[in-house]
């Protein structure tokens, strides 16, 4: 193998790695979380200011926790814990939804990758 071969293989590895980053990487976060309650926007919060937000809904109160650039649904009245199971949301476009409480938590994406999401 010549030195040029080594360079070509290294470049190819970098190229393939970049492809993974480009097509498999998570959406770029805008650093902002958006909470929707019912049909109205409840609020937008920076992901880098630690806080707990209580969002009232028809089934009770959904507690949203923001910490270290991520947001999660900490508590929600839904019996199946679907909202909590979404875990920490970090990448743009990721979301957690509590249907019983009609609350939607999402990380606002720098570039919108989905027009809509159906559940």
């Amino acid at each position, binding site marked *: *193998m*010549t*030195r*040029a*071969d080594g*360079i*070509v*293989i290294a470049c*190819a*590895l970098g*190229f*393939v790695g970049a*492809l*993974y980053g*480009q*097509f*498999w990487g998570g959406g770029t976060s805008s650093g902002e979380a958006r909470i929707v309650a019912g049909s109205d926007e409840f609020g937008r919060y920076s992901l880098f200011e630690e806080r707990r937000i209580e969002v009232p809904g028809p089934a009770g109160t959904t507690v949203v926790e923001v910490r270290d650039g991520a947001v999660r649904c900490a508590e929600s009245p839904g019996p199946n814990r679907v909202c909590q199971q979404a875990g920490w949301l970090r990448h743009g476009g990721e979301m957690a939804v509590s249907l019983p409480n009609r609350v939607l938590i999402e990380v606002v994406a720098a570039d919108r990758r989905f027009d809509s999401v159906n559940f």
Partner: protein
Amino acid sequence: MQIQTTREDHRIAWLAALAVAIHVAETVLPSPLPGIKPGLANVVTVVALLRYGWRAAAWISGLRVLAGSLITGTFLSPTFLLSASGSLCALLVLALVHALQADRPTERLVLSAVGLSVLAALAHMGGQFLVAWYLLIPHPALLKLLPVFMSFALAFGILSGTIARGVITRLNADPADHPSDDVTPQRDQT
């Protein structure tokens, strides 16, 4: 009527037949994704390029795609289209690199069969992927598969390049076989 054939014609026919045999044998191998195969027939193309020049490599590659598709029954099918476009891209890249380094075989930064195979494999995959995306499945979800395809292309490129390098080393060591009537000078493979 008899067509006059040269020694080079015979050599191309032999090598193309070898490439077709490898090509057809590979189609029976199971594959995790359509479009992924080792592409060992490219070994023949790269060896031909380094020993007999770009013209021979182009003939062998073209004949392989044509005869291979006729044998496997995919002539003019989407598979053929992908195979042909991939091979064309690979050939163009090989021709470009070969032309760039043909007149300075002694320089240090010269690609051996390994580098050539890697470039050809990536170009082949890139070409057929673009055609698949534009013509067959124009859906953005297909792009999610591109990194996987390219990983396989890279791995198989290194594999077939290593094989090609071994073949060339053995051919060069054989005193009975010299590409005497050749335009391209023979080059040391180190």
